[in-house]
């Protein structure tokens, strides 16, 4: 799937030294003028500019999507009011508006994201040549679609007291979360607009969080990315057990530090402007069950899937079998949402199946020691990420075989013989080469996931010398590591 150019990363010089200072100065000037509407207009303008900067061709689609969804929301609201005035209990007409609106959003997503995947699959199954369409995936379409659907449903459920077009457009376009979340709800964003640009004691906290996020992304995730790339690129050859674990563990951590780093930066940027975005991660690798994992990983997506897929399917109210079906379908949809590839489908299916097993296990009332629950959860998540990252199911299976030692202990670069391990233990630095260093870093990271996460640090934040040192240390080290080819993994979805 060809993707549009890509958003300007928060960790780029362009964003930090050019775009954001300009936005913030403009925001303060508008605020000083004392006209909130001007503040909102300014933010809409720069948000649209931010989107078009990353994806010029997608700008028109975004504008079209805004107009269409606003019209449908207006239609739902008008019909709802009419029904209430006439005391008409029938919601058929409102439902038509709702289904129409959701249908258009889903159709757009299906067309842009899945058409070629569908054509390729047909070609493969029927063994015929099918011409692919020249489709460019608009920036952030998956996140935008989910947010639009949530907005229409909230309008339908009469949760939104009044919808002003300016608030709606700003809610949809707000640049810190426009392209890769967190997925936000209209009713949690709009009431905060009064504090836009106000010095509410949050700017320092925002800077602090932004620096931590940037450190996670540029120092940790981007370093791991090199090991991941090397390991997965070598999987065509024989990948030994040690190298396979290094490559896959690196990806497990890369994904977490990349996406949670991005989320921290998005939340930090919004906080500097006076807006509090919902948290997206809460130490997911500390989870002691898969259910627990999904309460901690990409929390805004999990909440969306629960409310708009799992519950409408029937949730857990219709017996064990139907609940299992609902769980499986929800995670399958979650997998497909991430991308048009079989790897994502398998990843979703693994999580769905594992959650079904977890529920059955719970029903039997067997208790596992928490350390074993953690290990089991981590391993399921870890193995599932192999399918998420691999370029094909075959590659994923090759790596899984290597993970269980099918292809021997070591890679072809390093001698993992017993003699060399002994030399390494005796302090010979060259005994195991860089692989040993990588392995030790991964062990340290495994330890680091038990440290307080950035949201805990944010809660504890008070402007102080220690906090300043942390922010400066993270910020400077990050600038030291900013590389040219470092986009966010989730910006691809």
């Amino acid at each position, binding site marked *: 799937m060809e993707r549009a150019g890509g958003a300007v990363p928060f960790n780029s*010089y362009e964003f930090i030294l050019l775009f954001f200072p300009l936005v913030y100065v403009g925001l303060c000037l508008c605020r000083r003028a004392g006209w909130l509407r001007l503040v909102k207009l300014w933010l809409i303008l720069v948000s649209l500019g931010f989107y078009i900067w990353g994806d010029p061709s997608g700008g028109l689609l975004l504008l079209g999507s805004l107009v269409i969804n606003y019209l449908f929301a207006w239609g739902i609201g008008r019909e709802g009011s009419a029904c209430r005035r006439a005391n008409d209990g029938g919601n058929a007409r409102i439902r038509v508006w709702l289904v129409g609106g959701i249908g258009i959003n889903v159709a757009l997503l299906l067309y842009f994201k899945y058409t070629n995947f569908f054509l390729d699959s047909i070609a493969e199954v029927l063994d015929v040549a099918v011409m692919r369409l020249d489709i460019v995936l608009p920036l952030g379409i998956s996140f935008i679609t989910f947010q639009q659907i949530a907005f229409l449903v909230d309008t339908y459920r009469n949760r939104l007291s009044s919808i002003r077009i300016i608030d709606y457009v700003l809610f949809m376009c707000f640049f810190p979360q426009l392209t890769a979340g967190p997925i936000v709800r209209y009713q949690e964003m709009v009431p905060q607009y009064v504090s836009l640009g106000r010095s509410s004691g949050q700017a320092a906290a925002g800077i602090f969080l932004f620096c931590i996020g940037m450190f996670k992304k540029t120092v940790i995730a981007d370093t791991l990315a090199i090991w991941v790339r090397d390991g997965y690129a070598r999987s065509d050859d024989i990948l030994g057990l040690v190298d396979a674990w290094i490559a896959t563990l690196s990806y497990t951590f890369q994904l977490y530090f990349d996406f949670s780093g991005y989320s921290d930066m998005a939340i930090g940027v919004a906080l500097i402007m006076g807006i509090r975005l919902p948290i997206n991660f809460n130490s997911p690798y500390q989870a002691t069950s898969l259910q627990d994992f999904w309460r901690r990983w990409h929390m805004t997506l999990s909440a969306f899937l629960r409310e708009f897929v799992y519950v409408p399917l029937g949730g857990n109210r219709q017996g064990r079998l139907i609940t299992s079906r609902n769980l499986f379908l929800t995670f399958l949809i979650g997998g497909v949402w991430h991308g048009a590839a079989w790897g994502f489908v398998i990843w979703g299916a693994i999580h769905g199946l594992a959650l079904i097993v977890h529920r059955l296990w719970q029903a039997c009332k067997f208790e596992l020691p928490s350390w074993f629950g953690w290990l089991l959860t981590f391993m399921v998540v870890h193995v599932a990420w192999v399918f998420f990252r691999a370029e094909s199911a075959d590659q994923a299976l090759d790596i899984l075989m290597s993970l269980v030692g099918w292809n021997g202990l070591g890679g072809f670069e390093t001698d993992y013989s017993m003699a060399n391990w002994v030399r390494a233990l005796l302090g010979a630095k060259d005994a195991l080469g860089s692989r040993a260093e990588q392995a030790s870093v991964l062990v340290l990271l495994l330890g680091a996931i038990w440290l307080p996460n950035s949201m805990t640090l944010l809660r504890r934040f008070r402007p102080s010398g220690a906090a300043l040192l942390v*922010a400066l240390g993270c910020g400077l080290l990050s600038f030291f590591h900013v590389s040219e080819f470092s986009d966010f993994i989730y910006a691809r979805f």
Partner: protein
Amino acid sequence: MPDFKNMSEGMFILLFGGIMAGVFALSLGFFWLDLEYSDNDVIRHYQIEKAQRRVAVAKNNVRTVIVGDSSAGTSIDAVAFSRLTGMGTENYALTGSFGIVGSANMLARAVLHNPGLRNAIIVHTPFIWTRHFSKQGYFDTTPEFNQVLPGLVDGPLLEWIKMALNLKEIQWGFAALAGGGSKRPISAEEDYLQSSPKRYSNGALMLNMRELVSDRINDDKLKELDVLVSVCRRHGLNCIFIHGPLHTTIAEASKTALASLQTQLEIYNGRNNFQILPDYIYLRETMVGDSADHVDPFYRNYVTGLYAHRLKSFLR
């Protein structure tokens, strides 16, 4: 004295912003000083100064210029090449880090200082084609700062700011001041960076057969090649691109990839006086220098002869 245990939000932001600005100013200062930290700095300073110095002493005398990466620097001796072709020749080769745009820029500089220039010989190792666009290489060598390369960089000013505020400048700067870094001196005899004594032939280097030539060409490199072709066209130069030499064992094992590279590059042949020759010069192990695509200084004149023999009929 601020209370560091409990400071106000304003003080936090002020200190944060002030210290960050100070660090960036330090980076800018080192960028401005342009100290020599690595081989790349040494050879860049040397070749640019050489180009300017030669104007004063040998005006209009240079008919042919050689540009390229280290495979050009180690394999062609300008004096011997001048003698063999009967045309005044200069070698302004840099290293692979500067990419093909670095060569294009050195060519533009050569034209600037040698109005009588007719021929340009561009020599690049076959390993170069997989690399990304050399932004730093481009901005470090460009004679015209305002030149915009569509599709390659965001714009000269923004790119310049990014380079100047790269905090690694501080690391490099302090290391250079302390006499550190990975610098090799210029060898007057080789008219290039001094060759390392590590050789395949003396067992100090081992062939790594995982590092064969790839048949993949990075789009960035084709865009760089476009820049080079446009310099040739703009100045009416007779440009001949020839591949750098290769260790025989690597070349034999990469035969298919080398043929494929040539096929892919064929579209550039004959475009605006630009030719790409299909030849590859294979080096016996004893002739290989400190890298699989470098020539041992002892065999430099011999390899220069091979290149001169091949190129002479193309020169004007």
